[in-house]
């Protein structure tokens, strides 16, 4: 069945290549909101379904790209394991391929690493219809160019992901969330101070005057850290899932309303300047979600992010005319276009989703 599904996918890509068509790769569509234009005929990946290999003792799971994240994470949890990057789903049907293509990582990212850090290997169908495999199932592999990690975050513009191998990790034995009332500047200062110490912090979030800190690990270490960082236990109110999937009320104006949502990736020590936005801070200060209280110039946010070592993404918006992603410097743009042409010489796959030029 899967072989047939991959054949069909290759045929669709080849047909588009010879007929000048374009394809829009899609799993459940939970991330349709993300990125630039949605162009071309839908290429549905959900026929590529199922876990291909999972030996818990190996700490590696291989699944087809159209498999639901929920299915994978449930299976891992049954064996006491998890995906350490805590993939955002943004919808019940979210597929593995979608989250890897978007390069999304959730609250645990600052402590555990990003999705790309856990990708060990991929199978893709490139823009010529060729099925290819990169990387593998082992933790370390330096054979040739690291193409599999290039796929993470490429938004499907370099190939259709068909199968992905990910490193998984044991579930923490104990998990506890503490809440500390403080302002954002204080929260960022505290998080950066904790960052250099061997504390089992697995997530932080500051929103609406409260800093939430999740501790994960062995019992004694978590207990000791809970005392050290202060605050009060807040497990029942822990916001992690709601932040991961943006069901938290902070995001509501953007998720259900017309207000744009900006995602700023900056140095964790970047200050809390007033940018005219409500702000939710994750990843110890390195990730700032901004919901403008009144319209804000994209260029202002981008300049601020750049000044603090990062970049700003228009994560959700009805009007994407300011451009979703921070524009690239000319030399970098040149490298991007050459890579795009290498993987997808006819410009079929997710045209315009990452940058308008390709």
């Amino acid at each position: 069945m899967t072989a047939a599904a991959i054949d069909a996918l290759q045929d669709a890509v080849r047909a588009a290549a010879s007929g000048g068509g374009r394809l829009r790769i899609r799993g459940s569509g939970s991330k349709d909101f993300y990125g630039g234009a949605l162009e071309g005929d839908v290429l549905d990946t959900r026929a590529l379904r199922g876990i291909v290999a999972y030996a818990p003792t190996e700490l590696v799971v291989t699944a087809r790209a159209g498999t639901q994240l929920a299915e994978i994470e449930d299976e891992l949890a049954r064996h006491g394991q998890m995906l350490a990057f805590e993939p955002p789903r943004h919808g019940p049907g979210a597929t593995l391929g979608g989250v890897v293509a978007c390069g999304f990582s959730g609250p645990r990212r600052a402590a555990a690493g990003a999705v790309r850090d856990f990708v060990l290997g991929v199978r893709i169908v490139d823009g010529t219809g060729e099925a290819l495999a990169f990387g593998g199932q082992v933790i370390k592999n330096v054979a040739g160019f690291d193409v599999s990690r290039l796929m993470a975050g490429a938004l499907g513009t370099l190939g259709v992901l068909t199968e992905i191998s990910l490193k998984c990790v044991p579930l923490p034995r104990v998990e506890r969330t503490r809440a500390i009332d403080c302002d954002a500047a204080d929260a960022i200062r505290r998080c950066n101070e904790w960052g250099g110490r061997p504390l089992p912090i697995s997530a932080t979030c500051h929103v609406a005057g409260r800093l939430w800190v999740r501790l994960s690990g062995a019992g004694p270490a978590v207990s000791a850290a809970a005392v050290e960082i202060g605050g009060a236990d807040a497990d029942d109110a822990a916001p992690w899932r709601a932040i991961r999937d943006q069901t938290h009320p902070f995001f509501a104006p953007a998720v259900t309303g017309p207000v744009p949502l900006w995602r700023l990736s900056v140095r964790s020590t970047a200050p809390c300047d007033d940018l005219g936005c409500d702000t939710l801070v994750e990843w110890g200060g390195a990730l700032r979600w901004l919901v403008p209280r009144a319209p804000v110039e994209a260029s202002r946010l981008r300049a601020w992010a750049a000044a603090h070592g990062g970049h700003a993404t228009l994560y959700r918006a009805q009007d994407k005319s300011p451009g979703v992603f921070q524009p690239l410097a000319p030399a970098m743009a040149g490298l991007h276009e050459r890579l795009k042409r290498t993987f997808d010489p006819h410009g079929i796959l997710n045209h315009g989703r990452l940058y308008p030029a390709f």
Partner: protein
Amino acid sequence: MNAATGTRGRPTAEAIRSVTEGLRLTCGDRVATGQAIRDQHGHGEGLADGALPDVVVFPQSNDEVAAVVRLCAAARMPVIAFGVGTSLEGHVAALYGGVCIDLSQMNRVLEVHAEDLDCRVQAGVTREQLNAELKGTGLFFPIDPGANATLGGMASTRASGTNAVRYGTMRENVLGLTVVTADGRIVHTGGRARKSSAGYDLTRLFVGAEGTLGVITEVAVRLYGIPEAISAAVCQFPDLKSAVDSVIVAMQLGVPVARIELLDAVQMDASIRYSRLDGFAAKPTLFFEFHGTEASVREQAETIESITGDHGGSAFRWTSSPEERSKLWKARHNAYYAALALAPGSQAFATDACVPISRLADCVMETQADIDATGLIAPILGHVGDGNFHLVIVFDPARPGDREKAEGLAARASLRAIAMGGTCTGEHGIGVHKLDALVVEHGEAVSLMQAVKRALDPLDIMNPGKTVPHAGPVAGRP
């Protein structure tokens, strides 16, 4: 094909002369053409066979590197970046002559951001230098491939080494790069914001590219707080399999051990003699190091000791004094030289299989049987916590057939790993010696890697002949 090298011969004397003149205008007297310097830059460690560059240049800035690359591009002259030449697979051999860019004079630590836990350094900074300069900040850079390699070289080989179980490899720890591309432009990948980059993750493409896609001039890496507590322990086993099985159980329990190193009986024998390790037997041995708080180190150690005990391991021998610990790790790092010393006049090279943890015991035991059958000296050692282990295959170049036997053993070690769902190289890289194995391992995907190479280096001047096999364009691809 390369214009300056005709049918991939070496550059013509005229081309060398004119490029050398251009280099002198750019870098003054930091241009060397003497035999001794070229000799020194024509090979790494491992097998002695190398090939000399025609010129060696020592740039001091990004702009100088860019100017050198532009000169070479105009003359279609190969460019080989050089850190300190500790790579093991013929990475720096100037197969087609050309210009070796030695980055050792780009050795400044540019910025340390203690609060952000990162720093930016020039590519020629060595890891020991970086850690020395971090003294007093409470931070350290953990990636440790044994050799005192440069950050640029380590990024280019995607190095890992003894600390990878806990801290990852260069792949996870490089935050951003400054790269001079094959057309002599300077680009910055990643950024100070370490959590993501805009656009394609080009950092990951240049990391591990072995200098075939561009010259790295600056590297931004993650730093870590020096753990409150560090302790090391040694455990000896009655047989190899018990040692390997202990590691497998430890990894599967997810114990965050900082280092786990295996040395087999032959290697222990060699290291006891070479590094004067007192009080150890020539038996299969695991070296452990634990990092964390006092409490977590104790907890990790207790868990591990009970696992090793179940597998017939000896009681832990602790080394908590820094001096004793560094002696132990020095012995581990010198394992290669210790193995060489087993047979004076011999040469040696290393294999680098990495397999899924569940196949590790099978792979090690089959390899052991293969070594025995060849009659060669080839100790087994490695960072087994990642499923990665090495043979140091010692052979006598003067004895007819010895090298062939050694190469056969190495090739089988690669193929065995690939057949078990692993890779021919977990950390050393492809260089020239593993090109054949790469093709076995990656099949069709190699042609896409070749296309990536052509896209980023259309003139094929960046370390030509390494990492991916040469190939002409394939139909349907640019």
